[in-house]
Every structure is written in C-alpha cells, then in structure tokens.
C-alpha cells in the first residue's frame, strides 16, 4: 500500500476510537512535554552559566608569566601551566619586546600588563584597605560592567575610579547607597617605586636619592635597572562608577577580582610596588632592562584562547587560561542534560506502554477488519505497516503536542522563577531555552519511541490468520 493510503487509513482508524487514541496521544504528549521542559531548563541553565562566565571575561583571557624554571640570572617567575610541561622552548624575559610579539599574534585583542596592588582608600572619615586593579579600555564593551551605576572612564589618562559595589558599601554611611559615591573624590595611599639615581649621581650627591629624594622623580628604564626605593604616595581619584553588589549577580571582573579599578595607563604610571618587583631588583642586576611580572592577553573570542595559549607557550612563557575549566563545565552540563533527558524519558516510556495497550486493543476490536483486508489482498506487510502508521501518527501528534506543552511548562517555570527572584530583590535571569534542535529532536524521539512501541502489536496483527479473523464475532 502507498504511504498516502497508509496514513489515510491509519488516521481514519485513529478517529474511530477518538477518546482512547486521544488519551494515548496525550500520554505521549505528557512524556515529550516533561522531556522538553526538563531539557529546556538544562539548556537554559547552561546558557545562563555561559553568559555569566563570558561576562566575567575569564574565558577570553590568557595570563602570561615568565617561566618559573628559568636559568639563573635571567628574568622569570610564576608557575608553569600543564600545557608547558612538555614544552622545551627556552624561557624568555617578559619584556616590552615580548609584549609586542604577543600582541601581534592572531586573534589577540589587546595585551596589558597586570597591575594589581593593595592600597588604602580614604574618604573622610573612613579608610579601608582595598585591592586596586588596572582596567583596560576594552572592559567598557565587554559586558563586565553591566548594571553599573555611573559611567566608564572618560579617558585612558583620567584620574577616575570604578568601585566594586561591596567595597563601596564600606566607604558610605549606614543607610547610604553605594551608588551615592559616584562623582565624589577618594584618596588612594600606596607604596610607590622610586628609581635610584645612577651610580655617578649617587657618588656626586652622596646617599641614594631614592630613599631621600622627592617622589615621582623621572628616571629612565635603564637607570631604574639599577634598583629602586619604596616611598609612600597618595593620589586622588574621582569615582565615576559603582558596580552592582556581588549578591546581585556581578562583581568579579576578569582575572582581577578587585575592589577598585583605575585606568590601566594610570595604574602603570603610578609605579606602584608589586610583589614581582623584589625579584626584578635581583634580576635587573644582570642588566636585562624592564620586564613585566605578568601580562593579561585578551582574545577576540573564547574559541581562540587555546591557540593563543599554545603559541605563547611556544614563545617561552608560562601561559594560563580557564579553557580547561570551560571544558569541564561543558562536560558537567552534558552529564546534567543526560540525566534530565533520562528522567524526562521515563514519562515517555510509560506512554509507550499506553501505545502498546491501545494497539493491542485495536487488534482485538478490528480482528475481522484485518481478516477482510487480508481477504481483499493485503499482505502481512500491509497490515504491519498500517499498525506502524497508526503508532507513528500518534507519536507524531503526541510529539507536536508535547513540544507545545513542554514549551508552556518551561514558560510557566520561567515566569514563576522570575516572580520569585524579583520578590527576593534579585536579578531575574532567563533560565529556560527551547532551541530548534530540542523541538526537532523531541518530535523525532517521540516518533521513534512510538514506532518501537508499535513493533509488537504490528507483528501480532500481521500474523493473524485471515480465516480465523473472518470468523471472529
């Protein structure tokens, strides 16, 4: 029999016992709906995590440091990433030349030195220790600052600061909103590096000028290579932005989870003493010139990170990214989705028993009809296909209905979640997503399950002895 005739007869047969077949189809729909609802939540949660992770900027960043096991006397330090273990490329100094070389790599958006230091922030009468981090201009468009009150730095050299919400709370009076700091001035006290004058100057003027000389004395890099003194310094910043507090879903920005952000150019100019400077003092004795403790490399997209990390390792640096963490996250969600699919499929498995029951009942009721069909020339195959088609029609209809139902359930869960979170004063993220592959997959899955359920009834119907079937009353 032709497919058109098969589906026509199957639909006609299904319409005859409309209540029973509708209930069976509804059973499939409920099974598919549970599958779609659970998986759409799984996919939605995965997308939510991906979005949050992407917003942190963690997954498009590569942190570059000099190798730890560098030959004695050469600049170096930091830990080796697992990727470097088998790499025998000689270690190199992380200097300006290396920075330019890294910046020239494909898919590298920008390379900035990692400037991160502890300082004391003062806003009379309060003062608070804070981790300060230099922020590159690209952070403005990265989404890191979503929800921030105020605006981004007006320029790369502006003496402006963005405060992390939780830190801002510590600088305001009780009952005052952290955002009220926007537009106000904050003093930052920090330890400044001050280069020692060259030996000739020292000899001429007596004791090292770094310890007793005026702050911010301009010294060339070559001169700095000879060492530095540490002096207290202070700088005023105008607060231009306050990020949301951490309990509202933001806070960490890139690798540097700091309380205060200043333009990277300003941070570099401040010549703040960092931990690696002490190691640099000893290494600079070899006359290698200025070098960086670490560089933050931003990729154009997270997919480019692995290649960039590999290239940097081959250049002789220790490169580290969170790409492995991202892989683990994907594995976790794959397993999570699998479990959701298994639980969702349980209802569909129960529904498949309903299909078997319905079709077996149909065989009993339509015994004579099967006999007549065979007498008129239907082959066993035709009868089998007819029952398969009936199972398939129920499966397809149930799949379609189930997707709609699942979509509705997902929407309801999303609505309830948003409602609840809003009442708790929290952000209301989208935790639900029905991608096209889920819609298509659910319908195909329902069809396959239904056809599999139809195997036994269809074979039983096909095996019916036509003579016996025609005698059946």
């Amino acid at each position, binding site marked *: *029999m*032709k497919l*058109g*005739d098969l589906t026509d*007869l199957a639909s*006609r047969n299904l319409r*005859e016992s409309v209540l029973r077949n509708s209930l069976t189809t509804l059973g499939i729909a409920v099974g598919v709906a549970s599958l779609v609802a659970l998986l759409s939540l799984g996919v939605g949660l995965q997308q939510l995590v991906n979005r949050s992770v992407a917003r942190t900027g963690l997954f498009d960043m590569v942190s570059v440091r000099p190798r730890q096991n560098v030959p004695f006397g050469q600049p170096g330090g930091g830990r080796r990433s697992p990727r470097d273990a088998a790499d025998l490329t000689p270690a190199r100094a992380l200097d300006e030349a290396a920075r330019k070389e890294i910046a020239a790599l494909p898919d590298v958006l920008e390379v900035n030195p990692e400037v991160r230091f502890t300082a004391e922030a003062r806003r009379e009468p309060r003062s608070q220790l804070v981790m300060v981090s230099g922020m590159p201009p690209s952070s403005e468009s990265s989404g890191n600052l979503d929800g921030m009150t105020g605006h981004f730095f007006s320029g790369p050299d502006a003496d402006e600061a963005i405060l992390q919400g939780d830190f801002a709370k510590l600088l305001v009076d009780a009952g005052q909103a952290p955002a009220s700091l926007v537009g106000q001035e904050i003093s930052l006290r920090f330890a400044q590096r001050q280069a020692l004058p060259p030996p000739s100057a020292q000899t001429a003027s007596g004791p090292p000028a770094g310890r007793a000389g005026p702050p911010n004395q301009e010294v060339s890099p070559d001169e700095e290579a000879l060492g530095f003194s540490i002096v207290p310094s202070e700088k005023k910043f105008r607060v231009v932005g306050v990020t949301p507090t951490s309990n509202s879903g933001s806070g960490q920005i890139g690798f540097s989870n700091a309380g205060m952000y200043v333009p990277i150019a300003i941070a570099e100019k401040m010549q703040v003493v960092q931990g690696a400077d002490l190691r640099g003092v000893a290494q600079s004795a070899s006359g290698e010139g200025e070098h960086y403790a670490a560089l933050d490399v931003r990729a154009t997209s997270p997919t480019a990170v692995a290649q960039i990390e590999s290239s940097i390792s081959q250049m002789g640096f220790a490169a580290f990214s969170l790409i492995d963490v991202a892989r683990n996250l994907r594995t976790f969600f794959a397993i999570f989705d699998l479990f959701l699919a298994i639980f969702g499929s349980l209802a569909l498995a129960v529904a498949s028993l309903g299909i078997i029951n319905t079709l077996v009942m149909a065989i009993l009721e339509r015994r*004579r*009809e099967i*006999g*007549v*069909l*065979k*007498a*008129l*020339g*239907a*082959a*066993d*195959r*035709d009868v089998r296909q007819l029952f398969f088609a009936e199972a398939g029609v129920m499966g397809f209809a149930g799949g379609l209905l189930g997707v709609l139902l699942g979509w509705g359930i997902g929407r309801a869960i999303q609505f309830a979640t948003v409602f609840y979170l809003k009442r708790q004063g929290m952000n209301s993220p989208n935790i639900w997503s029905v991608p096209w592959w889920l819609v298509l997959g659910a319908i195909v899955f329902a069809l396959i399950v239904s056809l599999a359920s139809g195997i036994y009834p269809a074979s039983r119907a096909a095996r019916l002895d*036509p*003579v016996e079937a*025609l005698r059946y009353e």
Partner: protein
Amino acid sequence: MRKRNSPSAKFPVKDLRVTLRSMNVPEMTASSNGFAIRADRVSRRYKMGDALIRAVDDICLQVGAGEFLALLGASGSGKSTLLNLMAGLDRPSAGSMFALGRDLAKMSSQELATHRNRTIGMVFQSFQLLPRMTLEENVELPLRLAEVPRAERPARVQAALERVGLAARSKHRPTELSGGEQQRAAIARALVNQPMILLADEPTGNLDSKTGEEIMKLIAEIHRPAAGPGRTIVMVTHERALAERYADRIVTLSDGAISNEERLR
C-alpha cells in the same frame, strides 16, 4: 430456462488469455489444462486438542475457466475450507491447489496476497463490509491495496457500484443499507479489481429468499454478462435449489470429501 453453452465454448482459453494479458495477471499455463482452479489431492487437517480434524480430505477437483461451480454440503462438510484454500486464504496440509496454473502452496505470503487482490474476488455470507467506511470507500479498498493511482480510482469505483445498481448510495455507510444492498456492495468490491475468479461463500445465507434470488441473478450476470468477458465462479451454498438453477456443476461434499458430482449444463 436459458440456453447455456459449455464453459469452454463460451470462454475459450484464447479469449481468457487476452483478458489475462490486459489485466497483468498470470496466464493459464499448459499444465493447468484450461482449468481456472485445480485441486490435486488437497487435504486440510486441523488439530483440536488430541483430535485430528480432516476438514478437507484428499480432494481432487477441477474448475474450468468460465465455469460456475456450486459446492454443496451440510455444515462442517468442508466446503468453506475448500473455498478458502482456493482463495489462498489458507494453505493445504497436503496436495496442491492451482489457480490459473500457479501452485498456491508454493507462493510466498506476499504472492498469495497479490493473488487474492488481482485474481480472486471474494463475497461472504455476512458481507464483511467495513462499517465505518462509506460504500465507495469499501469498494475502493482493493484498489488501494493494488496501489492503483488515486486518479483512476473514482471512475472504477463508480463503474463497480453502477454495475450492482448502487451508484446512488455510494456515500452511504453499510449500516444504512439493507442486507441485499450490502451484499451487492460486497460484490462490487469483489469485482472492482476485475478478478478472473469470483469465490462466494453462502452469498444468500443472510438474505431472505427474494433478495437472495436477486443476488443470485447478479452473480449469474457476472458469470455470463451481456457484454464483455465472464468469470469463473465457485459458490458455496447449502441451498440446492439455487445451485441447480444457476450453477453449471454441483459438487457435494461430505466429511471433507467429494460425495457427489453433477454436471447440470
């Protein structure tokens, strides 16, 4: 009584071959010797518990092309079983059943289905129309099974219904018709694929005598139409009078075996 010619005179083998060719059905082979159906020591035995039932026991029978054969016998004599064997609905336990020269016992189930669809038309005592379908849908069923193109079907269904006088009732369901009309619809369904052989199992058994008479006249007309080719007919009945009036030959069965054979025409 009408003058009747011998089957071979009315439907010579040559004519039959022409018809068979036009219908794409297997031609009678030399081995069939001009018989539409030939039973060669056919037996059909059933096991019922420990007992072995010989429904058909070692029967040899030939039905000529274009012949009208009546199978007569009491209930349980094996006449319906023999008819089912001729139709290919059942397979013999022993012996061979030939239809148009082909051994049904050697056919696959798919070939038997095709044989039932193209070569055989069946009419039952209880009509066996599908109640949820209209008459035209019932009559269309064999065409669907034969995979006849959709465009051809309405005309063929209409022609079959016109032949039995039910063209005006094509949209009716079987339950809306009298017994006689239902049987006529069943005959239309049996004829729609233009089979060479019509097998009728007590076609008047559920009808009153007057309606039964009408159905018999219709079957006789199908057997020897005013125009066009006739058909081989095997009819199971327990009404001797009807058999004598319409059949060319009567074969009486008793306990699964042929007990008597009378050629009437």
